[in-house]
């Protein structure tokens, strides 16, 4: 592409992400976004004005060198761009797809002040896909073996990124995963239509090639305890078990058939592939021509409701107790859900599930209004007296968040936990109160984001490396 002046470049409109037609996609599980072509990517990259002091990077939790990788894209050197991103982000194909960019990097891009910010996430995704589809994920140099062994507990983004760094530093790494597949929420929670499982698989294969040993079906606490990992010869342990305890609403009727936690619903569909039942053995509630209500307003709720739609639901509702502006889900997910025909009922709160012969038939809702801001700064929803009303539904998914799974806490009581059961870890080193044990990701922060979990994994890797070379950590 010939040189363009800065002024001309600023005239280029933000390039649209090609996507599957909304009608067609609402009945299949293929990825919604189709990704940039090379032309679109270079056009979008040209929009970046290469700020001398790029603000975008300050918005990225791990400080990806956004300006530099975008420059490489505009020159067509996509592989170098991929390498540049990977200096800070181990999972760009994932983050390019699922980061809440409009609140992070893109929210502070200078172009956003007057018009539309650069499509950083879309470019990140393009670059990572390009690398994977052309040369394969490149396997970096691995340092000479140190003879030290690290156990990583949990194979979500925190565990995977920590494993990737430690293996390159020359340590032996074993990842223990409770489920039969590797990837954490990336495989059991986030659906295929948003994050194809093949992408996670490719990352895992690349790590296997580097020498990471993956042990599935291993629940630390039960199969081996953290202390036993040390007696089995591991020199350090990184705990990255995520936030895996579903919250329920604690209202009458919640144990009726047809009421699911989002974890169960999404696990059945994603991990166990219930959307292909009976080709795959695991069933899930048959949503065909049924009315489905999902309670909550985050990414998980959007994933659940869009999944129900794809399983054939006649009506699929999001029921949320605050107003639409407070919806915590990514804007893109809300937008996509609406395009697919999901209906949003806001300022409504469920107070009872009503059934017939054990099956869910109705939900009793109460209208809410917004009162004073609460501790989170959002206006607190208050119930409107006498506003109870009934709504017919056949299936409900409760997607109001996750607490921390107590297995590690019960079996390793000598680590410090906070009141909510999260592990207390140092911000910089991720060390816990127990010598040799580090922790990061959702188990420390509570349910957060992929990029934060990934960042925590890398911080831990750095500190574990220091610890293993006898530097003072504790």
């Amino acid at each position, binding site marked *: 592409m010939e040189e363009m002046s800065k002024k001309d470049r600023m005239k280029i409109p933000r390039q649209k992400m090609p996507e599957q037609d909304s009608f067609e996609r609402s009945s299949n599980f293929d990825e919604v976004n189709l990704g940039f072509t090379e032309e679109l990517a270079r056009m979008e990259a040209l929009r970046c004005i290469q700020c001398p002091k790029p603000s975008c990077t300050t918005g990225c939790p791990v400080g990806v060198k956004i300006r530099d990788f975008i420059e490489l894209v505009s020159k067509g050197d996509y592989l170098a761009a991929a390498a540049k991103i990977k200096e800070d982000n181990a999972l760009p194909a994932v983050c390019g797809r699922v980061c809440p960019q409009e609140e992070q990097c893109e929210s502070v891009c200078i172009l956003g002040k007057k018009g539309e910010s650069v499509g950083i996430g879309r470019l990140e995704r393009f670059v990572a896909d390009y690398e994977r589809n052309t040369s394969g994920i490149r396997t970096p140099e691995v340092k000479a073996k140190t003879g030290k062994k690290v156990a990583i507990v949990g194979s979500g983004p925190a565990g995977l990124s920590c494993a990737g760094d430690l293996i390159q530093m020359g340590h032996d790494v074993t990842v223990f995963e409770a489920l*039969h597949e590797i990837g954490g929420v990336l495989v059991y929670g986030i659906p295929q239509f948003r994050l194809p499982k093949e992408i996670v698989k490719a990352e895992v294969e690349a790590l296997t090639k580097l020498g990471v040993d993956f042990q599935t079906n291993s629940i630390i606490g039960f199969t081996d305890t953290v202390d036993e990992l040390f007696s089995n010869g591991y020199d350090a342990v990184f705990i990255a078990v995520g936030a895996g305890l579903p919250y329920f609403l604690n209202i009458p009727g919640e*144990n009726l058939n047809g009421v699911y936690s989002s974890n169960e619903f999404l696990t059945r569909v994603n991990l166990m592939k219930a959307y292909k039942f*009976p080709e795959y053995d695991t069933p899930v509630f048959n949503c065909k021509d049924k009315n489905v209500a999902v309670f909550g307003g985050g990414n998980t709720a959007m994933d659940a409701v869009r999944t129900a739609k794809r399983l054939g639901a006649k009506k699929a509702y999001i029921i949320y107790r605050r107003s639409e502006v407070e919806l915590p889900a990514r804007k893109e997910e809300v937008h996509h859900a609406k395009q697919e025909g999901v209906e949003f009922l806001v300022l409504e709160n469920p107070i009872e599930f009503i059934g017939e012969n054990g099956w869910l038939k109705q939900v009793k809702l109460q209208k809410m209004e917004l009162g004073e801001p609460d501790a989170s700064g959002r206006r607190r929803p208050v119930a409107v007296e006498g506003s109870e009303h009934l709504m017919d539904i056949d299936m409900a998914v409760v997607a109001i968040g996750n607490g921390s799974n107590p297995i590690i806490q019960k079996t390793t009581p000598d680590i410090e936990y906070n009141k909510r059961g999260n592990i207390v870890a140092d911000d910089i080193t991720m060390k816990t109160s127990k010598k040799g044990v580090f922790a990061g990701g959702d188990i420390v922060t509570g349910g957060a984001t992929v990029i934060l979990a990934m960042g925590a994994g890398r911080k831990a890797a750095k500190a574990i490396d220091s610890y293993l070379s006898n530097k003072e950590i504790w």
Partner: protein
Amino acid sequence: MYKIKHAEFLAPNIKKFIIEAPKIAQKRRAGQFVIIRVKDGGERIPLTIADSSLEDNTITIIVQGVGKTTKELNSLSSGDFIQDVVGPLGKPSHIEHFGTAVSIGGGVGTAIAYPIAVALKQAGNHTISIVGGRSKEFVILEDELKKVCDEVYPTTDDGSYGFHGFVTQKLKELIDSGTKVDFVLAIGPIPMMKAVAETTRPYGIKTVVSLNPIMVDGTGMCGGCRATVDNKTVFVCVDGPEFDAHKVDFSLLEQRNRTYRTDEQLALEKHECRMNNLH
């Protein structure tokens, strides 16, 4: 992959498997279970660890073929492999010296009760076993139980063997004939567990049952296995599987286990159709 070292039918449709699983063999205690996936694409199903051997690094499971997955599992033989086996899961049984302990197994429930009966005996209890079955061929593990228990009473619904009648009738007979029963453990079909709970309730005998809800992960992550005990919601896979029989809401358990009835039927028909085509 987990190797099946030995497999044999104990009764029509009930098969015993000895599987190589060194870690689980070392760790497991009475009352705990594993979750298995027979093959890729298969369902995760919970099965109790009936026994284990430290010398051979194996665990024993005893499986009744009731649906697609259990029937598929029961078609495997020694030398075959199981895709996934994870455990040990659930809380171990609470074992103490109660005095006289009666362990009741109905059908394949006997397999689940067996390791607990062994542990009760080891804790110094006078241990009585009641082994129920529809007819003679469904009474399982009688010889094994005889080796560890002080008294063993087989019962059959049709009177083809042992005591003629339900396990609850035998239990009541024992109590009324003056046996001082301090503890009852009952494992089997839900109606049987419910009936045992009602039998012991008037006598105030501590009674424990092992619940069998539908599970997915077995680690407390999905909440699919929830049940109501003492008017509170519990996750059976991590809070149980054993609970105070007098506080369990059995109807809810029965209701929730019906969730996938039609789908299960479909999966089974498809499976059997495929099996028949092979012959």
